[in-house]
């Protein structure tokens, strides 16, 4: 890692185009939690045609957009930023893709009859399906840390809304197992992708980080080259309640889908 220990530098890709599900909230959350700990936050907007520095940022953020905007970004990503994102991921920087950003991490995605390119950072592809997969969602993730430990199974809550079905190749691991909701394809019980500990894709917005501040702190710790226990604790009572609220919404509105999820629900861990 090349991270400074007292600030996190974020490259926000296509803030003008990929921002549809309140992606701004994810960035704001990171900023405040660093600020409250006396740590620095730098965000660099990187738009269409802009160069991307593979060494200058600790976290590369890709949000979701409307179809037309995502197509514009897909072409630009492949033309001008693919190599930089591959290099950044290879040196251990975090790459976080949400919704459309998740699809763009793969080889390709279908837009109507057309196949749009992705950056091929992760071995996955996205095809169209019948109807959109929409609703509150909860998954269980076990996130690795830089010291070799991991979080252990922990709930991640959010909202999903996607027409695409994302299929992971055999060698790729999902980010988590669906407890309530649809997940990558509505069938497999897999949600998102976790590649090498630092490349993360997911359909969970809502936005993701305000609903899961523990996850945000894991990302911040990794970006700072440390573990969350080393970060100053914050008064997270509102945050914990918000997390539980999002989990309750997922329980209320979404059917239990996966065999693992059903088992979990039966064991009372949902």
């Amino acid at each position, binding site marked *: 890692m090349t991270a400074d220990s007292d600030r996190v530098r974020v490259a926000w890709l296509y803030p003008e185009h990929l921002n549809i599900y309140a992606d701004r909230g994810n960035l704001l959350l990171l900023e405040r939690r660093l600020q409250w700990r006396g740590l620095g936050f730098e965000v660099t907007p990187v738009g269409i045609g802009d160069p991307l520095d593979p060494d200058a940022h600790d976290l590369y953020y890709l949000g979701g957009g409307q179809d037309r905007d995502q197509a514009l970004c897909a072409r630009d990503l492949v033309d001008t930023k693919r190599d930089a994102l591959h290099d950044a991921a290879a040196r251990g920087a975090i790459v976080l893709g949400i919704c459309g950003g998740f699809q763009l991490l793969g080889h390709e995605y279908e837009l109507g009859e057309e196949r749009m390119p992705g950056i091929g950072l992760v071995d996955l592809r996205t095809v169209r399906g019948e109807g959109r997969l929409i609703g509150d969602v909860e998954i269980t993730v076990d996130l690795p840390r830089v010291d070799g430990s991991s979080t252990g199974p922990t709930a991640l809550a959010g909202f999903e809304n996607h027409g695409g079905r994302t299929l992971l190749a055999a060698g790729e691991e999902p980010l988590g197992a669906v407890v309530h909701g649809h997940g990558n394809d509505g069938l497999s019980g897999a949600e998102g992708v976790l590649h090498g500990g630092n490349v993360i894709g997911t359909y969970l917005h809502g*936005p993701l980080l305000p609903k899961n501040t523990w996850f945000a702190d894991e990302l911040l710790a990794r970006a700072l080259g440390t573990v969350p226990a080393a970060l100053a604790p914050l008064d997270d009572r509102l945050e914990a309640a918000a997390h539980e609220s999002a989990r309750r919404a997922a329980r209320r509105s979404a059917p239990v889908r996966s065999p693992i999820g059903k088992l979990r629900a039966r064991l009372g861990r949902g």
Partner: protein
Amino acid sequence: MSGPRRSAVVAAQAAAKLSRAFGRGGTSLPGKVLLRMDPLALRRLGEALPVVALVSATNGKTTTTAAVRSILRAAGRRPVANEEGANMAGGIAASLLAQRAVASDPAAVGVIEVDEFWLPQVGGAVQPEAILLGNLFRDQLDRYGELDAIAERWAAFLPTLPNTVPVLCADDPLVASTAPDGRDVIWFGIDDPALAKGERDHAADGVHCTRCGTALEYELVFAGHTGWWSCPGCGRSRPYPTVRATAVDLRGSSGSAFTLHDGEASIQVTLPLPGAYNVANAVGAAALALQLGATLEDCAAGLGSMEAAFGRGERVRLRGRDLLLMLVKNPVGANEVLRTLSLEGRPLDVLAVLNDRIADGRDVSWIWDADVEAAAPSVRRIVCSGTRADELAMRWRYAGVDPERITVVPELTAAVDAVLAAGDGPIVVLPTYTAMLELRQLLHGEQAVAGAFT
């Protein structure tokens, strides 16, 4: 007079009685029964009215429709409207059925608010004289998909009604893109540079040209992606509006004044509804009413005597305190409300209610797109309520409100008690749609009265 099939009417009326008997006044059952038994019922009900006009938008359609009605009443006409919230085919059919007797009056005018997604179905059935399209802001994406898709639906639909006059907002590039080629369009808009903001806010949508994909340029920015826009790619630009507002004077929560123009003619208007967004609604309403035969004098009289639609800038008095109810349902609407609050210039006691029912949008992520930061410094105390109260409370904290000032009370009755328990002066209430309906029941139960507000 033609009308729906008698058997269908009887069945729908029975369904209405049944649903009232079971204590739910506003169900969609009667309309569904009516349309199931007579699929042409909506067409027949529309034909029975001498004139029909439709109003659609993501934001402000209830207020705009109310403004059109108020102007037409000033013009001596007899407007027939659908009940609030009943703005899809079934609800519209049921509302028109209930007011069938009025339709035989030659002065009757149907002024119907239509859900943006249902516009083609409803418009195709009732064949309106004119259609007002106000704006397309990001709204409840989980319900209807994306804005471009709605704009495309509208653009494909308008040419199918060659005798309908489109009344379109010139300031909204997405709405403007729906104008049918070679047809006369009534354009309306705001012509006051003083209302412009420094830059587009985070909730902006539709900032790329729908024709060529180039990023639009803005000379002035109003709410969301509306403003004086032009496309450097294909040369499309904001059409100059025939009906427009100039010299807008915003007077906080008490309303505004502006000059309303129709071509060369103009008149001074005092609008008792707050915010720049209501000026835009009023100008659209005037444009439609003028098309339906009202005069500028009717517009000034009708707009000047408007009362806020329930929850849209409405003031009520409850247990000795004034409540200002401001519906908040998506980021652009929220931003306009929050901006209006930030201009109040006094510390605010706030009750904010976030529900996630279908009519609110199941996806509550939009609260992070809303510029809550604009109003945060004005907040003295805030009670957060609703099905997603905790997440709303967190949003206000991250906008800069000290957690000491935030109380979470999910249940609405208890939340109202909590916000009334301390402080003095007016209370600002920011409910989402279903929260506003719950609030209406609660206020009705307490016989709260529409009150003077100072």
